[in-house]
């Protein structure tokens, strides 16, 4: 194991990695911006180095500063956390060239994982289902009709150069397809100066189901079951749980095998997450792989008893992954609630400020991952997540009950501070959530109806 590593992140994940270091007997050096100088996890570290001003571009995203800090502190490895530089292949490459272990996959793998088209190709070759589509731009209206017949309606038309919903149309029959094709092209031309359009099968009412994988230094790869992250808003997950209420044992086995097959095909190493869309008929489609630890990793830890961050470090240090697939047992049910300092009534705008009063829930079945405490000042420069509340129970119904009582206990107060706690409390009272009849658009629909 490493003697000393550097944690190139902030907030709760910096503390999470610091905890793993402490328990493994590894010294931890924390880098921080000027805005995080007073944070308690910085004080808890064996060494801390200020690397720049509050702006992420000049601190947590500044590769030269972080590498300099790593050299000055003489560390053997860098843990990038999530976000910031965690999926930056160039950063991983720089680490390698400086003889510093990057705690994550090799740069080549990160690069492949970051290229959605390439990742899809690999998935297809590995026999992992991807959302069927046009394999590039649709050349003509006739082409559009032909491909739509092949992949089946409804379909989605998207601008090749696009984003943000512009140049996007759905079609459920030939008439709407042809109309949509022309409209989408015009819009795309206007918006992106490129009229090219591609087509994908529209996955209706999908759930977001992702598999946690671990791959050892020798490529030995297992999965640790799935997480259901269907409660999200504009692709921002708000509640995650494990296992997914939508999977039976057979589907779980098949999706897990697909996740591992993909990871093997791209030469994956270390911890990663293979994301799928799951439609209402039990069809699943590969979306992408996240080459890092995820925010929601604790739900997997709660149901498997496996410490994922420790395994990240062990694998990066060259230790054999001595877990076999059959060693992984899912015990009970876990749910994570992201506690963000945001005002749900104002479009989830961040509410930085000083936390004057904080009461964290505790007792059986409750895990809280947070770097904040009464007196902590939430800086305005970073992500608004201030805590993760994770609950565990023998089954989903018990976990929901524990979630309700833990959320009832949780108190975060300070001038101007609003949090997502009330929305979690409301969601736990909804029949759709309790019966898990949700998809990735559920939360947005719910918020609209209750605006």
């Amino acid at each position, binding site marked *: 194991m490493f003697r000393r590593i550097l944690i190139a992140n902030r907030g709760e994940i910096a503390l999470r990695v610091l905890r793993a270091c402490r328990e493994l007997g590894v010294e931890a050096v924390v880098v921080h911006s000027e805005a995080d100088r007073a944070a308690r996890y910085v004080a808890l570290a064996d060494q801390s180095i200020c690397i*720049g*001003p509050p702006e992420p571009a000049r601190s947590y995203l500044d590769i030269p500063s972080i590498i*300099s800090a790593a050299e000055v502190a003489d560390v053997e490895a860098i843990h990038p956390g999530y976000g910031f530089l965690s999926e930056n292949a160039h950063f991983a490459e720089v680490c390698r060239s400086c003889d510093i272990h990057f705690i994550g996959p090799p740069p080549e793998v990160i690069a492949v994982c970051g290229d959605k088209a390439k990742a899809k190709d690999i998935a297809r070759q590995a026999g992992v289902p991807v959302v069927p589509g046009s394999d590039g731009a649709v050349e003509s209206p006739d082409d559009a009709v032909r491909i739509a017949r092949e992949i089946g309606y409804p379909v989605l038309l998207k601008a090749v150069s696009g984003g943000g919903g512009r140049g996007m149309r759905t079609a459920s029959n030939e008439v709407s397809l042809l109309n949509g094709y022309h409209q989408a092209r015009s819009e795309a031309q206007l918006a992106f100066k490129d009229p090219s359009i591609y087509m994908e099968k529209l996955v209706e009412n999908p759930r977001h189901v992702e598999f946690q994988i671990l791959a050892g230094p020798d490529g030995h790869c297992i999965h640790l079951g799935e997480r259901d992250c269907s409660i999200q808003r504009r692709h921002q997950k708000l509640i995650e749980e494990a296992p997914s209420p939508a999977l039976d044992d057979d589907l779980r086995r098949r999706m897990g095998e697909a996740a591992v097959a993909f990871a093997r095909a791209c030469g994956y190493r270390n911890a990663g997450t293979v994301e799928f869309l799951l439609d209402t008929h039990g069809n699943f489609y590969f979306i992408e792989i996240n080459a890092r630890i995820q925010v929601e990793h604790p739900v997997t830890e709660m149901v498997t008893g496996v410490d994922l961050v420790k395994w990240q470090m062990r694998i990066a240090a060259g230790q054999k992954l001595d877990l076999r697939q059959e060693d992984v047992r899912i015990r009970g049910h876990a749910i994570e609630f992201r506690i963000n300092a945001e005002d749900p009534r104002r479009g989830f705008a961040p509410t930085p400020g000083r936390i*004057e009063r904080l009461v964290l829930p505790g007792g059986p079945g409750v895990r809280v991952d947070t770097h904040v405490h009464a007196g902590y000042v939430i800086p305005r420069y970073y992500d608004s997540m201030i805590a993760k509340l994770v609950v565990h129970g023998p089954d989903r119904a018990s976990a929901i009950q524990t979630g309700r009582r833990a959320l009832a206990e949780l108190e975060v107060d300070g001038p101007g501070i609003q949090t997502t706690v009330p929305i979690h409390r409301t969601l736990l009272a909804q029949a759709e959530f309790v019966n898990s009849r949700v998809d990735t658009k559920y939360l947005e629909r719910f918020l609209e109806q209750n605006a």
Partner: protein
Amino acid sequence: MDLDLLQRLIALMKEGELTELEYEDEESKVRLSRKQDLALAGPAAPPAPAGAVAPAHGQPAAPAAARPETEAGVNLFRAPMVGTFYRAPSPEAEPYVQVGDRVNPESVICILEAMKVMNEIKAEMSGEIVAVLLESGEPVEYGQPLFKIRTA
């Protein structure tokens, strides 16, 4: 100066919810003033006398690194980046600056090595070096004071 005593005085003020404290003996004299305690759950604090000015809110801005702070004409020159500090371009060479030297904004005053690159650091102000705060080879973090420069 007895910092322990000071700390205990402040604790006493907090506990007793004092807003002001003055103290004088043969050796020293101290005056402390404190805002009203907002932390509740204690006994009621007396209302402030009429005419008192309500507190202004807000936090002092974090000092920007590399921005010199004037204290009686003496500025702290802070590290603009993380790295290893060198006073000279090579071990054999003379230091870029010594105490007493005059510098101008373009004067190179030290090197910060980061990622094997020797970054020449300029004074960014005119004045006289009055102190060199660390030795060659020492690691520095962002914002760490390196020199004192008198500009007045």
